[in-house]
């Protein structure tokens, strides 16, 4: 029954007084991000008692500070410090009520048919037809106000880049975003203070609570319990977000477990639980869309400080056969700008930052091979990932493409995000400078916004973790519903894929268990 309060029914560490808590539910959902929130709502709407456990804190949007450095400390996994073992790829994820949807840039793409067909051919996902998926895309697009950017929803930098694209006769894409009446602050990555971004925090989570769902923040699941080959609930601990001290032990008894802790934590929870890994694929096949940001300096002030965080993209080369890279503009504040370019140490750096207002940035993001692995070793999480040589060539092609566009946009010179100073002074230098780049660890300033894979979906239990309906091959009634399902990297920003797949899996859970 719906109460329509449309508010979160939430408990945080502050509200928990007992040292141990036992909760009975029909469904326990692990994680409150894209995958978790959608399942919580769809299953609660069926009249089931749903409990959502979220490791991160609850930060109401009124408390968002519109400062990247503060957001890192309060809304991001490992305070923004999560990286691969080499440390040269920062792997960003949200870790708060609403997960990465709270800090993402809201850009949405349907999964291209190319990948649905590939998954059918190579992973036996004959069920995920373009026809079936288009129904789910329609649904989440409606629910989350995913619509093409209005003409005015742009930024100064994006407009400059658009001029460059026009000059070079390159077709720009019109971005779609999950936003209502964008305020154009440019602070998507710090959380949307005025609730225009349609994150899970302001959509599916309150909607789930309308149907009786309960959310526990600061509550980290440490293992999934099973009995007779079936999921039976979870063990979790309530952790004080400030002191990191464990305050309470929580047991949730539930016959259905939905694991949606994201592509780094979901495989770790399975590894800690020692389950669902007869294929040996748990944690394997990690991909993350590494990206590099080129900084363009102009002779005049640009002041690209506010506007839609991303409003412009070019996807003429996104599919693997076409090059495997996508281009995105991005508004960045001084904290990010301060380390994306390398002008050299000292006076040169000061001169660069003094001209921050003359700069804009263009991101190259590559479709990558699933070469990484997430594992839990000696009590520590490890993300083993090195940019593959083939992917590095795609990155170089993307950087060249970007560089041409930035010069056509009026840039006077460019900084590449390398460890030591690398500058491109003119169009003529683009090829020679970029051709010299070698694929080496700790040489580039990569950021990944899109971890994927690690619990891939497939028909064959020998080489996938969950079946085509999201249920673990090994453990019945254990469903996985987050970006870890993706059998291959998709090259496009993946949130809409996760929204649609999670809606589909929720329907499959209902069909298999509640009909």
């Amino acid at each position: 029954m719906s109460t329509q309060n449309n508010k979160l029914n939430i408990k945080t560490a502050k509200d928990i007084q007992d040292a141990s808590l036992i909760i009975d539910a029909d469904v326990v959902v692990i994680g409150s991000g894209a995958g978790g929130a959608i399942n919580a709502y769809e299953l609660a709407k069926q009249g089931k008692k749903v409990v959502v456990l979220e490791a991160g804190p609850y930060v109401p949007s009124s408390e968002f500070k519109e400062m990247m450095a503060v957001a890192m400390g309060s809304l991001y996994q490992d305070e923004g410090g999560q990286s691969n073992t080499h440390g040269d790829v920062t792997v960003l994820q949200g870790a708060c009520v609403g997960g990465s949807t709270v800090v993402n840039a809201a850009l949405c793409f349907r999964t291209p048919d190319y990948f649905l067909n590939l998954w059918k051919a190579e992973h036996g996902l004959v069920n995920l037809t373009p026809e079936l998926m288009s129904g789910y895309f329609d649904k989440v697009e409606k629910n989350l106000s995913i619509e093409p950017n209005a003409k005015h929803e742009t930024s100064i930098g994006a407009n400059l880049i658009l001029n460059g694209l026009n000059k070079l006769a390159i077709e720009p894409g019109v971005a779609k975003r999950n936003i209502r009446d964008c305020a154009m602050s440019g602070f998507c990555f710090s959380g949307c203070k005025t609730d225009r971004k349609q994150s899970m925090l302001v959509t599916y989570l309150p909607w789930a609570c309308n149907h009786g769902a309960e959310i526990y923040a600061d509550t980290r699941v440490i293992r999934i319990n099973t009995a007779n080959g079936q999921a039976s609930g979870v063990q979790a601990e309530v952790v004080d977000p400030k002191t990191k001290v464990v305050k309470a032990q929580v047991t949730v008894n539930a016959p259905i477990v939905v694991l949606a802790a994201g592509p780094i934590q979901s495989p770790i929870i399975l590894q800690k639980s020692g389950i669902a890994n007869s294929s040996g694929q748990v944690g394997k096949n990690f991909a993350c869309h590494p990206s590099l940001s080129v900084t363009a300096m102009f002779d005049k002030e640009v002041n690209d400080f506010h506007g839609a965080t991303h409003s412009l993209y070019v996807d003429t080369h996104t599919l693997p056969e076409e090059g495997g890279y996508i281009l995105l503009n991005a508004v960045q504040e001084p904290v990010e700008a301060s380390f994306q370019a390398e002008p050299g140490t000292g006076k040169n750096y000061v001169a660069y930052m003094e001209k921050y207002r003359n700069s804009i940035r263009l991101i190259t993001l590559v479709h990558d091979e699933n070469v990484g692995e997430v594992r839990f070793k000696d009590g520590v999480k490890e993300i083993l990932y090195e940019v593959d040589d083939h992917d590095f060539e795609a990155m170089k092609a993307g950087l060249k493409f970007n560089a041409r566009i930035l010069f056509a946009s009026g840039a006077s010179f460019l900084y590449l995000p390398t460890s030591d100073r690398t500058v491109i002074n003119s169009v003529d230098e683009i090829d020679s400078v970029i051709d010299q780049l070698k694929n080496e660890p700790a040489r580039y300033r990569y950021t990944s916004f899109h971890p994927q894979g690690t619990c891939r979906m497939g028909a064959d239990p020998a080489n996938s973790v969950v079946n085509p309906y999201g249920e673990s091959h090994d453990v019945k009634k254990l469903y996985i519903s987050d970006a870890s399902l993706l059998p291959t990297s998709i090259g496009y920003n993946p949130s809409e894929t996760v929204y649609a797949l999670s809606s589909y899996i929720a329907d499959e859970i209902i069909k298999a268990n509640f009909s």
Partner: protein
Amino acid sequence: MKDLMISRRHFIKKTAMIAAAITALPVVNAVAGVLTDESRMDDLERAVFAKMLKIALPTEGSTLIDPATLPVLPTIEGALLAGMEPHIRQGLRGGINYFNEGAIKAFGDRFVNLSDVDAVRFVDQWSASAAPPERALSMGLKKLTVLAYWAIPNTWGPLGYDGPVSDKWNLPSLGNTPEPKI
């Protein structure tokens, strides 16, 4: 210094990871953890960061705010080190030591004792080095230091950057979105 006792190969591998991991760390932690004796900077770390701050941001003659007038080191300590996982914190200590000692080979003295000119050359040399741990440490420690500076809002004025806007622009919150009817 205990870390320096372990075999060099193992240490370099570990240093590469730790050094590079710190390149990703933020500085202002709104839910900053409690600063314990283990997480607090020791004298050497304080000296390395102070030297790095001095050479990375020589603001004299520029429009930028002098870092000596801002709480940059307390920002690194209170916001970053306080919340750091113990194994990363321990590795960071080792990494900073390794970086400081690394200057002896090329410049004849520890990083903290170099002239500012040599310290800049050392940092740039390591950033361009063929050895990944050297690149990672140089890039990481410099990044950490400048991030702490730019995380302090007083530094933004000279850039023309105006910071948060929602309150300033009086933007109303749209609140939670109504649940879809079907």
